[in-house]
């Protein structure tokens, strides 16, 4: 090399070249370039069809934008006005509270416990029984929500509903008398599959020897779950609770059953947003509530993280 600036071969033989490490930092030998290329399609779709409209939605949340009427022609930025309105809006507070109850009752407690219970019970069950149960539970999960709404009408209907037939409580309008409990039960029915599947694979990761040790020292079922199982599946509990809480908090299916009624008694936030946006045309307000819902989800996620990660 007679060129004045001689860089190339020397760099290759230097004693310590951290850059070498950067070339393959992963087992797959992807390298940064390919890794980026792999992530890119997903990222592009997400950016275009998710992040962009989501941010736009959040922007709308600080305007008084409406679908029709004068404010549609000339929307004004009103800053935190919508949020202040929301805080003073009894219907919003009602919805928020209902959403909390709905998520707590149907997801955090209902789906979690039933899903775990099923996974736990089915561990040692005969294969056919296991398959049958899992298939039924899964079926409830994969059926389209519109269909599922019809199914539950048939269960809870006032005249001729299955529940009334079974209990002999002719004429009880469950959806009107116990709207929240009804949609909670409904959502447990609908969503338990995910928890069950997740916990099934989680339980498979608990070393059987630890379970048996508990048995040998005479631990009860509850002691076993507390001392042996839970510490192992803590991460799964977290993932599961996060996901199902998020999905439940954003679930619109209750609307198909109760339309938020009677008298807002089952109007969870997504239903509230729907009614504000579509029935009231109040898009600015609805967007602001969406943001609040997002923040609430974030807070709840943070809470779970704290609760479940504390001891480790």
């Amino acid at each position, binding site marked *: 090399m007679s060129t004045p600036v001689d860089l190339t071969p020397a760099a290759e033989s230097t004693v310590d070249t951290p850059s070498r490490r950067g070339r393959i930092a992963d087992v797959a030998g992807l390298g940064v370039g390919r890794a980026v290329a792999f992530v890119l399609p997903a990222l592009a779709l997400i950016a275009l069809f998710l992040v962009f409209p989501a941010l736009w939605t959040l922007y709308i949340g600080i305007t008084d934008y409406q679908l029709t009427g004068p404010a549609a022609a000339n929307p004004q930025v009103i800053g935190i006005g919508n949020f202040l309105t929301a805080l003073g809006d009894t219907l919003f507070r009602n919805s928020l509270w209902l959403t909390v109850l709905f998520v707590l009752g149907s997801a955090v407690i209902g789906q979690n416990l039933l899903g775990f219970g099923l996974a736990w019970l089915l561990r040692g069950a*005969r294969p056919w029984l296991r398959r049958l149960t899992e298939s039924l539970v899964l079926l409830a999960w994969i059926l389209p929500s519109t269909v599922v709404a019809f199914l539950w009408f048939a269960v809870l209907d006032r005249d001729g509903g299955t529940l009334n037939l079974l209990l002999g409580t002719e004429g009880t309008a469950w959806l009107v008398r116990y709207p929240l409990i009804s949609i909670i039960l409904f959502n447990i029915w609908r969503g338990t599959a995910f928890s069950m599947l997740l916990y099934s694979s989680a339980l498979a990761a608990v*070393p059987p*020897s*630890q379970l*048996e*040790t*508990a*048995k*040998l*020292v*005479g*631990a*009860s079922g509850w*002691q076993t779950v507390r*001392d*042996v199982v839970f*510490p*192992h599946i803590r991460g799964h509990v977290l993932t599961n609770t996060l996901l199902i809480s998020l999905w439940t908090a954003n679930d619109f299916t209750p609307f198909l059953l109760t339309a938020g009624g009677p008298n807002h008694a089952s109007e969870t936030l997504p239903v509230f947003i729907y009614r504000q946006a579509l029935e009231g045309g109040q898009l600015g307000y609805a967007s602001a509530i969406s943001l609040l819902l997002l923040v609430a989800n974030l807070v709840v996620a943070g809470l779970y993280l704290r609760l479940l990660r504390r*001891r*480790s």
Partner: protein
Amino acid sequence: MAGIDITALSTVYPNGVRAVDDLDLHIADGEFFALLGPSGCGKTTLLRTIAGLEQSNAGTITIGANEVTAVDPGKRGVAMVFQDYALLPHMTVAENIGYPLRVRGQSKAAQREIAESTSAGLSLAGLLERRPAQLSGGQQQRVALARAIAMGAEVLLLDEPLSNLDARLRLEARTFLKRLQRELGITTVFVTHDQAEALALADRIAVMESGRIRQLGSPREVFQRPASVFVANFIGSTPMNLLDAVVVEDEVEVADARLGRPLGLAVSDGDKVTAGIRPEYLRLAPRGTAGGISGVVSTVENLGVSSLVSLECAGGVLVGVTVPEQDEPPIGSTVTAVPEPGRLLLFDAEGSLLSPEPVPA
């Protein structure tokens, strides 16, 4: 402390596998007993049936004075150490050791006390606040032992307690375990597929195959007079040479060679038998020595103070010979291996040992 009595025990898995098959066994009080056998022979199942973790289909188990066949695992008075130790990863060593007391609702102080007293004898004193993940394999094993001891059980069951340790630790833990059992005097049943472990540790060994016991005896008995080809094959840190042979008068013909055979057996000339001789009981002699097998040295494996020499004999028969380090023959040379007197065993066509008289120890 208590002995264990097992009569006509069968354990069948739902898929139809008879993992324990009509088995009778008595284990004496305070004995260190090994269950040895190849993978899948039912060792673990037998141990778990004793512990109550598997339900037996027939037969009875008695521990001490109590029949426990249908008793819950937690109430049989047995403690068990699993192959992976099954330490609870989120508890400290002290909490792990005290866990049996916690389950019984005893106070934190009592838990702590048992942890301290038990761990002292197991050189775990300084480790009580650590978590299992911060311990070496050998330490984990000792914690598991301490927890089992803390249970105050009459019988200790160990399922391959050494197999998760690395080679070096395994040797140390072996000696340690042997001493501990001696000191506690607790009846101990110990599962392994490593014959060296079983020989080194046990007072008595049961060699299992397909859910049945094939031989029951002291390590010496099992090593020197394996009851069958199967046991012979299984015992010994270098595999026993098992060679097709034909009885010819007072000798047997093996791979073109004639070897002196044990007498007083129910065999006659021309019978096809299997001649068994351990590599350790063969001596290298100059080429062509009578009463020996000649062959070409094909590989030499260093065993430390000795080496395992593989001879390729007539008809491609491979014969292993253990030689002291200084006597290693060069690869490719031809040598003759001569059995030590009285060490050759004959097995009949079904593989059962043919010698009626015990060889003096």
